[in-house]
């Protein structure tokens, strides 16, 4: 039995800092073997100016979730249901404070938001640079596709962006194959945010890079956030990277968010048994060499999610109710949500007045 998720929609969705408010987002793929419920009821609120980490194992739907927000889902995939209220600054022809539902607007309106208001660095983006075009032409073309600007101004903007990530001007004259992976990825990030968007969505931007380059990119993202007041949605399966970067996190499992909290809370007191497994799997350098346990079993298939709590076949704490009733994501404590029958939760997202301010949530940089 599936209990419909009620997250207190009567509560006004917009808090003081809310940038994106996602409710019950579902993205399905029609396959010959049936309907794949790849994103199956995501509830999340992302605040302005925060770095929000989206974590979860491979195949849990992280990329599809972000692609959904950007309306990049291609057939046979489709948005089954849900809302994603977006509160950008200064959108032409829109009242300030009036939200835009990213899941409902036309593709034409969406194109106006991409780059200018929502920047996106897809998984493997650095390999998607056009191999036969110089970096400068690629960035200038991309800028021109989104705003009217003289070529001279566009070039100036491009050089400013390259400088921001520590790349020298000569990089502009080069072809992608003349750059290392780390340089290509920094070009991609720098150009994606050239129009000062409200939010940058970066999908596994450092997964293919080595630890040194990863460190450089994480440092740069933090600096850019501080300098530009940019909101960053950072998608990665790597919990250690989230520990380094994220202010708050959402843990995804089998197409839904199962836990949300500040990064400190998630790491120091993980509540959901799946989150606990993720934290326990992080290898540490130095100290006693203990055998880590990992999370036994296979990730389930979106074609046939397990009944009740989708984690129950792999959960050591599963009870009878877990096999039958899907737990709802609810508030366990201030700023903390979990979807698990082990906890008593309030069935709404968060109370507006008791929200912690972002400066309290943000960790030291």
């Amino acid at each position, binding site marked *: 039995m599936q209990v419909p998720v009620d997250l207190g929609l009567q509560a006004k969705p917009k808090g003081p800092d809310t940038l994106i408010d996602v409710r019950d987002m579902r993205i399905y793929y029609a396959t010959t073997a049936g309907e794949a419920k790849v994103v199956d009821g995501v509830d999340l609120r992302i605040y302005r100016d925060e770095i929000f980490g989206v974590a979860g194992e491979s195949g849990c739907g992280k990329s599809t979730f972000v692609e959904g927000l950007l309306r990049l889902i291609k057939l046979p995939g489709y948005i089954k249901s849900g809302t994603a209220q977006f509160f950008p600054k200064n959108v032409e022809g829109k009242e300030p404070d009036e939200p835009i539902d990213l899941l409902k607007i036309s593709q034409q309106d969406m194109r106006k938001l991409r780059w200018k208001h929502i920047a996106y660095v897809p998984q493997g983006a650095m390999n998607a640079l056009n191999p036969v075009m110089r970096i400068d032409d690629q960035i200038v073309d991309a800028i021109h596709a989104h705003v009217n600007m003289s070529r001279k101004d566009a070039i100036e903007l491009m050089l400013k962006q390259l400088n921001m990530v520590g790349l*020298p001007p000569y990089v502009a004259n080069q072809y992608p194959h003349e750059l*290392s992976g780390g340089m290509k990825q920094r070009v991609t990030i720098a150009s994606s945010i050239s129009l000062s968007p409200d939010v940058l969505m970066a999908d596994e931007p450092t997964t293919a890079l*080595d630890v040194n380059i990863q*460190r450089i990119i994480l440092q740069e993202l933090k600096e850019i956030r501080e300098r530009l007041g940019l909101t960053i949605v950072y998608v990665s399966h790597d919990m250690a990277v989230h520990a380094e970067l994220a202010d708050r996190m959402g843990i995804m499992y089998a197409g839904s968010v199962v836990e949300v909290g500040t990064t*400190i809370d998630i790491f120091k007191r993980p509540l959901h048994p799946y989150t606990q497994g*993720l934290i326990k799997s992080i290898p540490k350098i130095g100290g006693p*060499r203990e055998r880590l346990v990992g999370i036994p079993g*296979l990730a389930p298939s979106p074609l046939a999610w397990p009944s009740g709590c989708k984690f129950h076949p792999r959960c050591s704490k599963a009870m009878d109710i877990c096999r039958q009733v899907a737990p709802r994501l609810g508030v366990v404590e201030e700023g903390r949500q979990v979807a698990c029958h082990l906890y008593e939760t309030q069935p709404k997202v968060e109370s507006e007045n008791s929200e912690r301010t972002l400066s309290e949530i943000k960790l030291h940089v």
Partner: protein
Amino acid sequence: MLLPALLEADNVTKSFMARRRPRVGVGQADTQRAGRVQNNLRDGMINAVDGVSLAIPAEPTLISLVGESGSGKTTLSRMLLGLEKPTTGTIRYRGKDIFKLSKEEWKVYRREVQAVFQDPYAIYNPFYHVEHVFKMAIKHFKLADNAEKARALMEEALRAVDLRPQDVLGRYPHQLSGGERQRIMLARIYMLKPRVIIADEPVSMIDAAVRTLFMNILLDFRDQYGISCLFITHNLSTAYYLGGQLVVLCQGKIVEQGDMDEVINNPRHNYTRQLLNAVPSGDPEKRWTTKLTLEELNAY
């Protein structure tokens, strides 16, 4: 007397005609010196591997080979696998130059030294079920003489890597996650019972939980079946977890090697220290407090 090494690289160098790419790009302060960097972009010979000697001993051992991207790890592993000939130096298996083995000896070497790649997607045929991967190996290496025995072998191998045969055998490669594909490669290797596994960045694309399972399998393979592994990674935390020996490669040269704990607790080379410091601690209360600059990174 020490046992002779099972597989060894003896003073091996591999040169490529290549266009040098700047590693990271210098900072803005360095733009006046951009001309110097531009010079680096000229075509020339580079030694991807430069005078490396490395031995995988006859007794079961885990050796981690670490180094940043471009340090030569893959090139070295491809030579050890016989996929690439060294420009100078020798690769020996059981004391013999692998490029001078008889047909019979070559067959033994191909079975006893097995590879796991970063994403083994490429070696799967997308049109065949996973079962096909196992059947091909069973046929090629004559592991079973009837269908029943073959089935039993496959199932045992999958259970050894924590996979349920009924869940995976009928699936197509694209229906598996990256971690599942990696574990299936290990299951195939389990059937072959090689002496050495050469694993090139096998866990960098997979999440921590699956990574843990993967590394535990390597530990079990060593302890239960005496299978050695050369484990290649850029992340010292995964290497540390395995223990054993550590070899640090920097611009094609070994700059440090020894017992894992000794090197980690007392790194002698700055490059090793840099690699160590770049591993995120995994604790939000112990974030980096210093900054790694592009200049520091360019130093190696």
